[in-house]
């Protein structure tokens, strides 16, 4: 199962958009990530091949269970890393958000959970 950076980013976005609007279309993703439509279609095809999303008859993109799992996990990692960079390391907002987005692809969920626990203990000391 190949999970590249783009795959995880897209699944994260589709997860958020679906949670928000109930459904997601290709052009919603394009607007959300500020990417051109053809690039989005490319990646969606790959996601379909890997079994992370399905195309519904209405032209919407639906997450499979596996796709949702990855999307949620990626967003969780993104959030924890962002809070770490911004609140604890005082990194500037936009930089922290972007860099958290990059770092999330290189660490496992377990590691990030350990980071979260560590930060909790730090706060409670």
């Amino acid at each position, binding site marked *: 199962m190949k999970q590249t950076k783009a795959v995880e980013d897209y699944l994260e976005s589709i997860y958020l958009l679906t949670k928000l609007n109930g459904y997601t279309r290709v052009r919603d993703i394009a607007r959300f990530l500020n990417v051109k439509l053809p690039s989005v279609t490319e990646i969606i095809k790959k996601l379909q091949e890997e079994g992370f999303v399905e195309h519904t008859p209405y032209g919407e993109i639906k997450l499979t269970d596996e796709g949702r799992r990855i999307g949620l996990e990626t967003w969780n990692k993104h*959030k924890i890393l962002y809070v770490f960079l911004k609140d604890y390391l005082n990194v500037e*907002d936009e930089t922290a958000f972007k860099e958290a987005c990059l770092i999330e692809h290189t660490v496992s969920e377990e590691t990030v959970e350990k980071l*979260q626990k560590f930060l909790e203990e730090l706060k409670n000391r």
Partner: protein
Amino acid sequence: MRKLLSGVKSGKKVKVVDFIVPPHHGVPQYIIRLQEMGILRGDIMTIERNGEFGPVEVEIKGTHLAIGRGIASKIVVEEIDNG
């Protein structure tokens, strides 16, 4: 485009996408407070004022709210084009 509320320029309209809260820990008080003041996921608001420092002023549900920078940087929004 996906952005943090703290990074949206004055005059833009945005849709609230999500709040950045650490997962598995319940909802912090300030998020409930934001929601009670009318900022819910899916809502559309206009950025009235956003300087480099200082709180962000938004217009939502007919009233103006001032949101501290720290909180504003925990709100993920999507910029929507006017119209």
